[in-house]
């Protein structure tokens, strides 16, 4: 064997070894249908105004939510907003996952997740690249890098636009970050979100979402063109001033729940809170 051949063989072996650590331990590729066996009120029809139960929100988050008016969503500027990645996995719509691999080395470069509703397309970089500097563009899906932790895909996301943790006005700031984990058990996948936000959360918000593999899944496009649904005065933005939202008590009254429960906060997620209610 001459020297060039030895060098080439050594290079090939090296490249294979370098590529190996990024190789998937588990295959998540396919169509996944969201399961709505939990939080169905929040996730299908949408949450009630004033329902913050179990969420570790700050006073600032509560204040923002109480000023929120659902009519905001009828404004052309808001009609085609996708969910941020900190919420999208709780929304409706089929999830598709696929991979980009280098054609020559088969090294995993990127995992894509795409949720049908409002075409939430996320790129998860698996090639070890760093996150961009803090001043880089913030987007709805953010900047995501992933790594395999045994058989679990663990993803870190930064550079998010200001978004929401619940579709009733509870906000997340553009300083929020997320770690999410994809656990697969046969045809069932449990997706875990750990969201941190120094502005609107007092502690990390952990949520889990179930998905079921759809072997014959499909996805349709979701084009969105904003239109003027309601003619308003220029510059008007639907809102409630502090203390003037008339709907905040409706949810608690309908379900016989006291305000200290519906107003949320970390303590409302603990078993001792349930004992206090009995």
């Amino acid at each position, binding site marked *: 064997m001459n020297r060039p*051949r030895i060098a*080439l*063989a*050594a*290079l*090939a*072996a090296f*490249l*294979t*070894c370098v590529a*190996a*650590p990024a*190789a998937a*331990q*588990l295959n998540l590729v396919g169509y996944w249908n969201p*399961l*709505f*066996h*939990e*939080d*169905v*009120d929040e996730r299908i029809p949408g949450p009630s105004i004033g329902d913050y*139960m*179990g969420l*570790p929100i700050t006073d600032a988050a509560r204040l923002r939510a109480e000023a929120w008016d659902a009519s905001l969503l009828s404004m052309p500027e808001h009609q085609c907003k996708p969910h941020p990645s900190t919420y999208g996995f709780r929304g409706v719509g089929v999830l598709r996952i696929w991979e980009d691999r280098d054609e020559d080395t088969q090294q995993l470069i990127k995992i894509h997740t795409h949720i049908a509703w409002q075409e939430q397309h996320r790129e998860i970089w698996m090639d070890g690249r760093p996150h961009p500097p803090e001043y880089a563009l913030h987007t709805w899906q953010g900047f995501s890098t992933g790594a*395999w*932790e*045994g*058989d*679990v895909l663990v993803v870190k996301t930064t550079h998010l636009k200001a978004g929401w943790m619940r579709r009733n006005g509870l906000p997340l700031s553009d300083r929020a970050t997320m*770690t999410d*984990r994809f*656990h697969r*058990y046969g045809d*069932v996948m*449990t997706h*875990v979100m*750990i969201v*941190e936000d120094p502005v609107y959360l007092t*502690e*990390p*918000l*952990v*949520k*889990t*979402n*179930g998905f*079921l593999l759809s072997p014959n899944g499909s996805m349709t496009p979701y084009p969105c063109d904003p239109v003027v649904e309601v003619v308003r005065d220029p510059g008007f933005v639907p809102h409630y001033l502090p203390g003037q939202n008339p709907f905040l008590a409706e949810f608690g009254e309908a*379900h016989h*729940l006291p305000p200290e429960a519906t107003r949320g906060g970390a303590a*409302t*997620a*603990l*078993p*001792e*809170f*349930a*004992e206090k*209610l*009995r």
Partner: protein
Amino acid sequence: MTTLRPTFALMAAAAIAGAHLGAAQPPPPPPGVPQTALQAAPIDLTGQWVAIVNEDWRWRMVTPPKGDVASVPLNDEGRRVAEQWNPTTDGACEAYGAAALLRMPTRLRIRWQGDERLVLETDAGRQTRSLEFGTVSPPAQRSLQGHSVAKWVNPPPPPGGPGLVGSAGGTRRAGGYLEVKTTQLTPGWLRRNGVPYSEDAVVTEYFARFQAPNGDEWLMVTTIVDDVRYLTQRFITSSHFRREGEGGRWNPRDCGAAS
């Protein structure tokens, strides 16, 4: 042909390297010394954990009204039985069976009893489950917690070398989970308001553990209930628990009354 030779050499080298990596396996235990379940544990589930109830709050933290079966895939018979629930039985032990116990606002204590049994206790309803790794015959009698057979599921060996995490038994490969299958159940409730599961139910659970960026340790349990008598499809939920330190609150409350 001369120009193809380097390419062939590249492919051959890559194939050899790939085959070698694909064949990598953790070293087997010494001959004649099988590992116990305790020794084989890829993750450490022991300790005290507290349920963080920020999902299905209205159906878990308080007793929902009679007939509120939202999101449970009940068939007609299941709905009929749910409608027969008597609200004066709120807090009955049927709500604390294995199919729904971990949905309760509760704390868990998990410990090893010997090398082949994990014991899981709850303060809500004062229930105890035994998760058996060895070959234990099913009991003759059905029970609220049934007969649970457990097995560890290890992550595939990483091709780039072992990813190690701390656990009670020293350093192990990252990942892995516990799979538990429970049968021999007596009829119970999926929710406190009498949403039923039958004695035919089979409960499959996956216990995983992870660390949040702030250092908190979490236990996540994915629960799948199969019950052809009352469900039209599998009922799949996931519940998460945060690890508590020594001296964490523990408030045992019996079931059988409002608890």
